């Protein structure tokens, strides 16, 4: 990730696309080809007919760059709509992480206690390890992972951000 991303504000952009082959490659290629940053990317089909997929991208950049990103995304032929959720009003963002902690004794008990505070569930357990499932905004997930670090953090798998606007209006 580029240096720019550290100072430039983050934006979560939702892209509704026609579910044709290669559409994800087009979106990703656009970002790499034009030097835009991808902090996180999620994609899945979102309608019953399996015609449409939604891509959520967390990126960063100043206003001019974000406007460019939006315009460039809209220019892709199989794109229905692009919404900058960060700009368009309040939104909900969630991420899910599976966090493996290898610990014994006091650390093991502490890990369970922290998990409880974060409402993380243990979805796998051996005598020497746990896999926790934690959901929340990225900040919460980051905090959970940070706390697990000294307790025996062994592996992390994250979904990346999914997001949706609050209120009655649909995309």
């Amino acid at each position, binding site marked *: 990730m580029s240096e720019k991303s550290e100072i430039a504000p983050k934006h979560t952009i939702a892209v509704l696309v026609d579910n044709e082959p290669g559409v994800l*490659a*087009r979106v990703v290629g656009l970002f790499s*080809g034009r030097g835009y940053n991808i902090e996180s990317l999620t994609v899945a089909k979102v309608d019953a007919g399996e015609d449409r997929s939604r891509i959520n991208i967390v990126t960063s950049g100043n206003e001019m760059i974000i*406007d460019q990103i939006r*315009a460039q995304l*809209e220019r892709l*032929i*199989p794109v229905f709509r692009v919404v900058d959720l960060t700009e368009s009003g309040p939104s909900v963002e969630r991420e899910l992480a599976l966090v493996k902690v290898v610990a014994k004794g006091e650390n093991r008990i502490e890990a369970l206690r922290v998990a409880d505070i974060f409402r993380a569930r243990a979805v796998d357990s051996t005598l020497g390890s746990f896999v926790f499932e934690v959901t929340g905004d990225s900040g919460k997930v980051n905090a959970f992972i940070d706390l697990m670090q000294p307790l025996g953090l062994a592996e992390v798998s994250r979904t990346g951000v999914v997001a949706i606007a609050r209120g009655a209006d649909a995309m």
Partner: protein
Amino acid sequence: MSGTEQNGKATLSGAEILIRALTDQGVEVIFGYPGGAVLPIYDALFAQNNIRHILVRQEGGAVHAAEGYARSTGKPGVVLVTSGPGATNAVTGLTDAMMDSIPIVCLTGQVASHLIGNDAFQEADTIGITRPCTKHNYLVQDADEMGRIVHEAFYVATHGRPGPVVIDLPKDICVNQGHYEKPDLENLKHKTYRPPIEGKTEAIAAAVEMMAGAKRPIFYTGGGLINSGPEACARLQELVRLTGYPITSTLMGLGAYPASDDRFLGMLGMHGTYEANNAMHDCDVMICLGARFDDRITGRLDAFSPHSKKIHVDIDPSSINKNISIDLAVIGDVGKVLEQMLARWKDGAYQPDQAALNDWWTTIQKWRSRHCLAFTQGADIIKPQHAIQRLYELTKDRDTYITTEVGQHQMWAAQFYKFEEPNRWMTSGGLGTMGYGLPAAVGAQIAHPDSLVVDISGEASFMMNVQELSTAMQYKLPLKIFILNNRWMGMVRQWQQLLHGSRFSETYSEALPDFVKLADCFGATGMVIERPDELDASIQKMLDTDGLVIADVRVAQEENCFPMVPSGAAHNEMILGDGENADRPKVSGEGMALV
């Protein structure tokens, strides 16, 4: 066509459907080159008489020929190439068409579906390779889908901002049977792609208000006008007449406004005129129509037209605020937007600020009197500028199309050949592809068999697609290839002289062929033009000679192309040809890297 009945509907092979769909699109010409993967398509072509196939000599030539065809007619150009190397050879042309927004539909062969991904013979990931250099691309996976995809591809290539579209055709899909019905092409709608046509009323009103309030206005116009069509260009002329404002054009926009008109300040940008660049720098309202603030236009960004309000009319929203901050954007087709602006101007009975405009024109005339394109033609050696000027004088009253290669000759052509109409000028602007001009001339001549088509060439560029001479000979195309032979890759030599201490690294055109003999061996006519006093008669002889002529015009070898805004400089820091700074521009290291 062959076909069997199935469920009461005739079935056709995928290749036959392809040809039918192309015919329904009104395609008359395909530029192509055969190979294993496209044999079923060549078979289907063989069995019909609606579409003419022009056999090029290299696939890169096919795309440039299709570009020349498209640019000179306003219709999409169609290309057919085989898989693997056929498709990869087409990539430069596709990128060229992408940069210059030329509508192209390129059909590429592909290995059979079950072999895709297997590193099969002549397999290339054409979809992956061409994704960034096309407006869109398709892999046909079912013969039943062929018709829909072909029509969609033409829709995408020609609507909104035009561009190249690739259709990748696995061999088995071309052989398999499928159904085809001609769709209602007039009312075709795309599922997701809805380019804007009309400008928003409020934006039009605001734009006209801003225009009318201008004291030092300028129209800055580009290739979008050519793409929008002759009607858009006619409306531009009306608006310029109505307002009396000065107008300049990018390389790609030449011909949208008649160059001989007094309001035309010539081309702007790196090799633009002194008056055009200074007017851009000092204007208070800039009306950008179908141009995109390319770095060859703006020069140093933070010094670009610092005191102006900028109106930008473009069909592509991603062009707005990309390089330059815009005060007022109008998204729409430039022809339609001009119609709306004209109506608004007339309805509101707007009047330009005549007193301010008179002052502005006085300033512009002062810049003009600098005669920035002046050169001195001596008795011994032909100046390249003079050669273009004479070519212009001797061809201007004819039905002429001009193509160019890339380099100094291209810029001199843009400066000295005056285009009065759109679609007469074909050059590689955005990509700057040497080797464009000869195949583009082939395409233009195929589209306009009775017109005069001249490729203004450089001796180095000419060698890049010289094989297309053979194509031109096969179809008896009477192209006139006018080589400004300076024995240098002149434009690169110029940069080495001005920016790299005259260290002429690898830019001398060594071991050039004898162009007269070269013409001869292809069955064409060659001539050498060496002396200024024989120039007119020789050009006339070239024009009067039947068939293809290569004129090897020996021009002053070390002539530089001025004015020049060096990279990293502002518009008003131009180097002029006659000034004492001509050999020593002030260019920073930073500017050098901007190249």
